């Protein structure tokens, strides 16, 4: 479910990042007020736990293996906000160190796996286990249902994000620029894979883990209750702000015309009524320097201008590569100097 970079448009990534910002902020505040300063080592170990869990290969009946996210278990034991923080950090380590999930798509990945998944699992578990004994069978059944639905819902969110791409971002000829599958293909595909394989795995693992804890370590299932909730912090304003952002963003995406941030100078004039002076200057200079990527006086026919493009591009590439190389040489020389003087 880790979406790599390149599948989602930068606009979508920005929106998902913006949606996650208040969630992260609230989770830090919330965890800080409920678990005190203790939360730094706790979160660190929780994140490490979630990272390691994602590497467990769980055998499934057909002989192959699948892996669980473990987000449901974390949410049930430490509460959903702490789980959000832990999984976010596990995802950050995966994206930065192992290339699992994109850097731009980090917000989207966190939304699906660190927000939708733990919250869904947690509240389903909570509702199903109200007034139940620690040892009651309702607990692990609820764990299964929570884990199953949580991961399926997260997958459906990923499917929606991917499926919106061809509808929102395509060329005039209808060629999709990012993920090519529309909603009616992306969502069922994601949902099906998780309904049949990943969902049961997450569910069974969560249920078995809870069952085991009931026997061997029942206090773990009560950690969340021990923490006294604090009312020092109000979230109302934050959630209103987030709701407004959430409502406004799709409007911006659906607006016709060029993609956000991709306007030419003329379009900007139409939109703003004026062209920022700096931009106008820049665009003038740019043209003067590159002459539309052609060679002056060599743009009579299609063939000539095509060659012009290619020559300009080749010259540009060679220049860029050379400068890259020079930077390497100079920095390397300086480094060796520094070593010698030591």
């Amino acid at each position, binding site marked *: 479910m880790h979406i790599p970079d390149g599948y989602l448009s930068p606009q979508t990534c920005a929106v998902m990042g913006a949606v996650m910002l208040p969630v992260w902020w609230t989770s*830090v505040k919330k965890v800080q007020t409920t678990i005190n300063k203790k939360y*730094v080592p706790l979160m660190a170990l929780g994140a490490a736990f979630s990272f390691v869990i994602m590497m467990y290969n769980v055998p499934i009946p057909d002989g192959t293996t699948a892996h669980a996210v473990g987000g449901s278990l974390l949410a049930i034991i430490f509460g959903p906000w702490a789980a959000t923080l832990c999984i976010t950090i596990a995802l950050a380590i995966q994206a*930065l160190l192992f*290339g699992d999930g994109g850097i731009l798509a980090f917000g989207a990945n966190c939304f699906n796996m660190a927000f939708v998944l733990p919250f869904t699992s947690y509240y389903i578990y909570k509702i199903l286990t109200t007034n139940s004994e620690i040892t009651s069978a309702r607990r692990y059944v609820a764990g299964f249902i929570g884990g199953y639905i949580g991961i399926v819902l997260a997958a459906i969110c990923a499917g929606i994000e991917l499926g919106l791409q061809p509808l929102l971002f395509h060329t005039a000829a209808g060629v*999709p620029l990012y993920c090519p599958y529309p909603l*009616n293909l992306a969502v*069922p595909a994601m949902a099906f894979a998780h309904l049949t394989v990943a969902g049961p795995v997450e569910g069974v693992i969560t249920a078995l883990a809870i069952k085991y804890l009931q026997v061997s*370590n029942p206090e773990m299932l009560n950690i969340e209750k021990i923490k006294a909730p604090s009312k020092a912090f109000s979230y109302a304003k934050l959630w209103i702000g987030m709701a407004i952002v959430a409502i406004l963003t799709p409007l911006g995406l659906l607006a016709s015309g060029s993609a956000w941030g991709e306007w030419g100078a003329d379009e900007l004039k139409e939109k703003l009524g004026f062209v920022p002076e700096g931009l106008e200057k820049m665009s003038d200079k740019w043209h003067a320097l590159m002459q539309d990527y052609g060679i002056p006086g060599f743009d009579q026919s299609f063939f000539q201008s095509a060659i012009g493009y290619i020559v300009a591009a080749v010259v540009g590439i060679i220049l860029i590569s050379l400068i890259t190389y020079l*930077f390497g040489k100079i920095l390397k020389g300086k480094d060796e100097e520094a070593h010698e003087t030591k």
Partner: protein
Amino acid sequence: MEKTINELNNVMKEEFIAGKIASRHGLLQSLDPRINIISTLLLIITANFIHQPVILLFFNIWVIWLAKVSLVPIKSFLKRVWLIVPLFTVIMVIPSIFSPFLPGEPLLVLFYLPHPVQFLFWQIPQVISITKQGIFAAIVLVLRVGICVSLSLLLTLTTKWSLLLKALSKIGIPPIFISILEMAHRYIYLLLQTTVDMFIAKKSRTVGRTTTGEQRQFLSNSMSILLGKSYFMSNEVYSAMTSRGYNGKALVLTEFKVKLFDWLWLIFIIIVCLFFIGGDRLFVWK
């Protein structure tokens, strides 16, 4: 179980190799880590705005060149970039080049159905063909994913993890996040080791075959044990930290200094971005 043990060992091995490359004296290693992060981000954003395959191809070649100048072993770099993620991308986009998934101008007609078929909420057209639009979209996606994967791999290969984290905290990521990230990174190896030990202990005591159900039972039990151990250890670590004077604030020892070359490099990267975006707007593939 064996698969998991192997995977865990691989993770530790990869991290070791990455550490070795990061201490070489190449181009990106010599830059200020903050500049490295910002330029990587700029380049990834640029790559996502580019829609022309030719430009994306040039971009890819330049990134490989960048890796070469940074003394990253090219063979294993290419293997890691092009065998894992884009291969997955290629498999994923193959259906999209056919007309049932992405309707468009037919490039190569495969066969005709007697009539269009409606399958749930998915329409299969009468003509099954490979479409121009499909090929275009597939090429763009694979090339772009390649660039993004190369760039992020390059960033982490050329920057030491500790420096990377410190740089992140300098560019506005909350310090709390960074210190949790830093500690989590270390505990991962501890927990990985613990897991490997548990698994090997179990394996050495197992005679004969175990059923899928038994294996699952063992896995979920070790998961719960690991969770219990983590919770117990976090309390221990917290006591250790407070007894050493921890008050909730993290201190960073290394000071970064941006040199002239770093600024020049950043300006150069901005020019590169403009060059590729400009090329993308002008060089239209039809």
